[in-house]
């Protein structure tokens, strides 16, 4: 892979340089990569590679941990069980209950670990890119959740009942009923998948921009007296990396909690 495929910013420019090339500020272009290879019009780029690597990491880890599980667990199995239990008990049982939720555990466990690992690439050296900051990846997963809970709504309540469930139809609202139904429909059916996607996407996008900002600045300032500024900037890189580590886990958690809540709402009696 060339530098252009991996980094997406100009590396040979420094402050106080004779060339006066200016600060290569990060922006939308930082989220576009040169294809690693192309088949016809299909371009395989770095985010795709990292997405597939996430699959390898998640499946590989759980394969190693759970392929031959033992009654008395080894270290790896214990870690896997802790992670599995965190999602199963901490998220699914909490919002859906043990009996109702058991069916959706695999989906939500897959979602959590997939999102988390995709986020995690942001601070892994060389990778250093959160896959979820390309909106297609969170959108795909949010779409799966959307299809799941929409299907469940109509399966559980029938067509009319499902519509009532989604729109929060309630006769006691009286005159404001049409408005309430309209707002609820707009909010739940149209906006919800979008916010579900964008909440994750925007957090990772912004986090990556911040990291890029200070990382590029550290590099750009590394000349003459700028070294002092570069030091400050680099401290920010360290701090933000730690912060990102936290945000990545939180966003994965939020994404899955919301998915569980949507499913719960679809299964619940409308009120």
């Amino acid at each position: 892979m060339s530098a252009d495929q991996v980094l997406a910013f100009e590396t040979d420019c420094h402050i106080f340089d004779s060339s006066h090339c200016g600060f290569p500020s990060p922006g939308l272009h930082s989220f576009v990569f040169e294809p690693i290879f192309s088949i016809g019009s299909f371009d395989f780029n770095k985010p795709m590679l990292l997405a597939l690597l996430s699959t390898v990491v998640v499946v590989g880890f759980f394969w190693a941990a759970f392929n031959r599980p033992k009654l008395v667990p080894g270290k790896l199995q214990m870690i896997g069980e802790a992670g599995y239990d965190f999602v199963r008990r901490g998220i699914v049982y909490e919002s859906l209950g043990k009996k109702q939720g058991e069916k959706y555990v695999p989906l939500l466990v897959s979602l959590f670990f997939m999102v988390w690992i995709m986020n995690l690439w942001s601070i892994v050296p060389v990778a250093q890119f959160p896959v979820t900051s390309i909106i297609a990846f969170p959108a795909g997963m949010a779409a799966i959740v959307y299809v799941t809970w929409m299907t469940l709504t109509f399966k559980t309540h029938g067509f009319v009942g499902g519509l009532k469930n989604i729109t929060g139809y309630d006769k006691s609202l009286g005159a404001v009923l049409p408005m309430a139904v309209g707002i609820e429909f707009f909010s739940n059916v149209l906006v919800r998948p979008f916010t579900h996607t964008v909440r994750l996407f925007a957090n990772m996008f912004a986090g990556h921009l911040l990291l890029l900002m200070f990382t590029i600045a550290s590099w750009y300032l590394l000349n003459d007296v700028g070294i002092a500024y570069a030091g400050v900037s680099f401290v920010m890189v360290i701090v933000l990396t730690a912060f990102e580590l936290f945000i990545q886990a939180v966003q994965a958690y939020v994404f899955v909690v919301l998915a569980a809540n949507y499913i719960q709402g679809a299964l619940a009696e409308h009120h």
Partner: protein
Amino acid sequence: MNPLVQLAAEEAENPLIPPIPELIIGLIAFAIVFIFLAKKLLPNINKVLDERREAIEGGMEKAEATQAEAQQTLEQYREQLSEARHEAARLRQEAQEQGAALIAEMRAEGQRQREDIVTAGHAQIAADRKAAAQALRQDVGKLATDLAGKLVGESLEDTARQSRTIDRFLDELEEKAEATR
């Protein structure tokens, strides 16, 4: 502007519009994870987790059962022990009573035997004395008659007279003896 940024600016339009190839790759990546976890790996671990829970619960149940059994055995043991104690006390009491009765019986028996012996001795003595007196009387009578015959020189053949005479004589002797006593 460097060429890369220009290139990027051309491609990066709206970051909120998902590019289709990425969408497909993302879905494939997720589907693979989901299939592996849902079909194989999570059922695997669920089975083991259930087994483990059963093993723990089974072990606890077993321990409880063992404890209950031990408690029961202990109760039984104590009951038996107290029973045995009662039995022993009862036996001791009985033995004491029996011993006392035996001793009393033996004593009564001894008493009775002694009395028997004494009575028998008395009877024997009385009989002996009577026989001796009888024999003595006859002997004395014979001796007396013999002596009298020799003295008188004639045989007193009439035994009836003889014995009457002797008896009378002896009675007189006895009366004398009584009188002197």
